[in-house]
């Protein structure tokens, strides 16, 4: 079955990997790794989702890992726990709940040009990876699979208010991470 998928979806995966990495060799390696991983975890593939969607989700994880290593390796501490994430984002505010950092980082002034910047993508990928596990799962569910809030809450067994609170924390952490790691090149 997987051999058929190589024929059927190989080009699409390769196009996507190339689009994300701008490197033919790396894109090929990513595609090969994707099929090998898919093969090993084929029992996790529930026939209810489209094979291409499933393969793309594996590929996207490989792309994130690829960005993480080595370009963004310095980004990550140990993977942090949810509790550490709460403390870290708490520290962005003082006791009254005002921003600890009162200056607006100049990087945000030309945010428009960042979206197409491959180095920025790498930084962002590293930052996504540094989120606590649950937060990352939620972010991926929301943005990769474009699931709606209620669906995500059901799947993760959390309330809607829990959901936007975590989303808030995750966004704060991404903001901080981007401010710390971008422009340091």
């Amino acid at each position: 079955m997987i051999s058929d998928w190589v024929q059927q979806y190989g080009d699409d995966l390769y196009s996507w990997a190339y689009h994300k990495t701008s490197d033919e060799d790396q894109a090929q390696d990513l595609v090969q790794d994707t099929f090998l991983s898919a093969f090993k975890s084929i029992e996790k593939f529930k026939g209810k989702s489209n094979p291409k969607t499933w393969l793309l989700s594996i590929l996207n994880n490989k792309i994130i890992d690829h960005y993480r290593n080595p370009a963004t390796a310095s980004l990550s501490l140990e993977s942090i726990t949810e509790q550490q994430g709460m403390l870290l984002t708490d520290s962005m505010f003082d006791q009254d709940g005002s921003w600890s950092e009162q200056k607006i980082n100049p990087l945000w002034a030309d945010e428009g040009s960042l979206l197409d910047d491959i180095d920025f993508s790498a930084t962002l990928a590293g930052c996504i990876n540094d989120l606590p596990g649950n937060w990352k799962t939620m972010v991926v569910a929301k943005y990769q699979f474009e699931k709606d809030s209620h669906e995500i809450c059901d799947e993760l067994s959390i309330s809607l208010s829990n959901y936007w609170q975590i989303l808030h924390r995750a966004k704060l952490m991404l903001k901080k991470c981007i401010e710390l790691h971008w422009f340091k090149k």
Partner: protein
Amino acid sequence: MNVLMLSCKKASSLIEKRSVSNLTLVDGFQLRMHLSMCKICKAYESQTKFIDQALSRQLSSTNEAENIAAKSLSKEFKDKIIIELDKSS
């Protein structure tokens, strides 16, 4: 703290809440007031929108799929993958 005044921490969380559900009238009013006065939260509002866009772009497996340039793997490379798969089975 004045009852009319939100802290920046609360305001920034309401910005996120607003994106997933409706705010109560009071919350909505307080948030609008806060944003009209607080430059840093106003900036945060646009930063979080930017982060939204960047995350969609980075992670989405559907959005861009139609706009990306089609590339093809060579037959040799596909065969190579299939051989690797056979080896690991």
